[in-house]
């Protein structure tokens, strides 16, 4: 019961405390308008190069942009605690680490999925991309899965954030790599083999592929394989992230660097 409270209430409280600064003046430009402009940029590049359709870029970039709330917020749950000097008290508490960390990731997943869905909706409206009504629910599921999967990667980065000072640099690098490698803008078949191999191990790659198929009229059954792979990748990253966080926490204690990085 305590674990459940730590997971649900603790996670929500932490999210509200750390992201209280997200007023509409910050939220709307960064998480509503910017993804729309990212979509527009790539749509026009696509039109100029004559490579893919508008739908291709709308789906790819809407899903990929949910990496911003997922990665940045997940990492900031650690960095923010440190900045506010509450990381020490959190980590010396007897609370189970699993509900502690997973509880903090749940609001991040919800926010990431919201950003992805909103970006897709706005992008579609502006560019006149139509989606069959039957595709709405499956697409929503795809976006939620993508967001969850990316939050798993965010857990790994949060662990690194326990030791690395320049988290903003690290996160921007990962964002850029996801932009190239996940097939959001370049079909992964066009990438060199070694890049394609990496793509298959990243969050979003399968979700973006599934999203495009769903929008093209495929049913959930048709993309179940892709979704399962996306889910599996997310779980692997989440487990790795959790183990890594525990490892870095121990290292932080040994080297007395928890509050210093």
């Amino acid at each position, binding site marked *: 019961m305590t674990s459940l409270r730590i997971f649900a209430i603790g996670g929500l409280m932490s999210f509200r405390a750390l992201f209280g600064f997200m007023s509409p003046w910050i939220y709307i430009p960064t998480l509503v308008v*910017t993804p729309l402009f990212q979509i527009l940029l790539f749509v026009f590049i696509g039109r100029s*190069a004559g490579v893919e359709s508008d739908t291709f870029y709308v789906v790819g970039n809407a899903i990929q942009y949910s990496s911003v709330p997922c990665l940045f917020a997940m990492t900031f749950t650690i960095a923010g605690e440190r900045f506010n000097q509450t990381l020490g008290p959190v980590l010396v508490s007897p609370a189970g680490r699993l509900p502690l960390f997973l509880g903090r990731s749940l609001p991040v997943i919800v926010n990431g999925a919201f950003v992805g869905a909103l970006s897709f909706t706005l992008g579609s409206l502006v560019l006149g991309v139509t989606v069959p009504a039957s595709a709405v629910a499956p697409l929503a599921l795809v976006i939620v899965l993508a967001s969850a999967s990316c939050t798993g990667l965010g857990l790994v980065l949060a662990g690194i954030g326990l030791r690395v000072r320049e988290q903003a640099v690290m996160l921007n690098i990962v964002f850029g790599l996801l932009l190239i490698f996940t097939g959001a803008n370049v079909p992964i078949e066009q990438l060199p083999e070694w890049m394609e191999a990496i793509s298959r191990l990243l969050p979003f790659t399968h979700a973006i592929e599934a999203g495009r198929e769903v929008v093209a009229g495929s049913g959930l059954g048709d993309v179940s394989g892709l979704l399962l792979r996306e889910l599996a990748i997310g779980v692997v990253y989440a487990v790795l992230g959790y183990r890594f966080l525990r490892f870095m926490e121990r290292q932080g204690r040994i080297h007395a660097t928890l509050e210093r990085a």
Partner: protein
Amino acid sequence: MRLARSMAVGWALHFKQESRNPFFLWIVICTPLIYATMAYFLFRGGTDGDKLVGAAVGTGMMGIWSLTTTAAAAALQWRRRSGILELLVAAPLPFWAILAPITIAISALGIYSLLASMLYTRLLYGVSLEIEDWLAFAVAVPVGILAIGLLGFMLGAAFVRFRAAWAVGNLFEFPVWTICGLLIPIAVLPAWVEPVAWVFAPTWGMNALRDAALGDGSPWDDIAMCAALSVVYGGLGVILLRVFLGSARRRGTLALS
């Protein structure tokens, strides 16, 4: 004379200081590399050499613009958080003479962006980067950077007054990349976008660099436009700064972060 000296020293100091900021270096070096890579794949593996030369210059310009919008805001936010902003405003030097060298120094870091982008395209993709008019290119780089830096200065006036202005500043990143023709020809965009693009220095800076590199047209008109826009941005920035600083003083919000 003292004002000019202060601005020159301020510029040099900030250029050195910001050159050691890993976040800024990430933006100027990695941003163009990421977009140059995507441009390479998007433009069908680079069969069109001119398009790739344009993309190399364009992604370099993207880095300069990113740095100006993101880093100028971050620099002011950092000064506000550290409690330095009030001291700078209270200094006997006019605040515009303090702020302008900061934003121009940050834009000047974009020279790394241009170099990284061109070297990357040359070394990894083997695209020959022959510049048709070296003199025009050498003039276009600093004039373009100055214009973009002064545009950043104008935006910086808002950063001083509004705490969340950094987020609005970041908002300009993608739109300017799109409408100024840094990666795509402006002709691809809706017709009403073109007059909007004229207001932004990166449009003219990009045209000047592209024309100097490819020899498609005379870059000197575009260089002149960059110089003219610098004067306009500078003048408007000074006026806006006076208005916003006055407002921040009256409301006592200067130090609030």
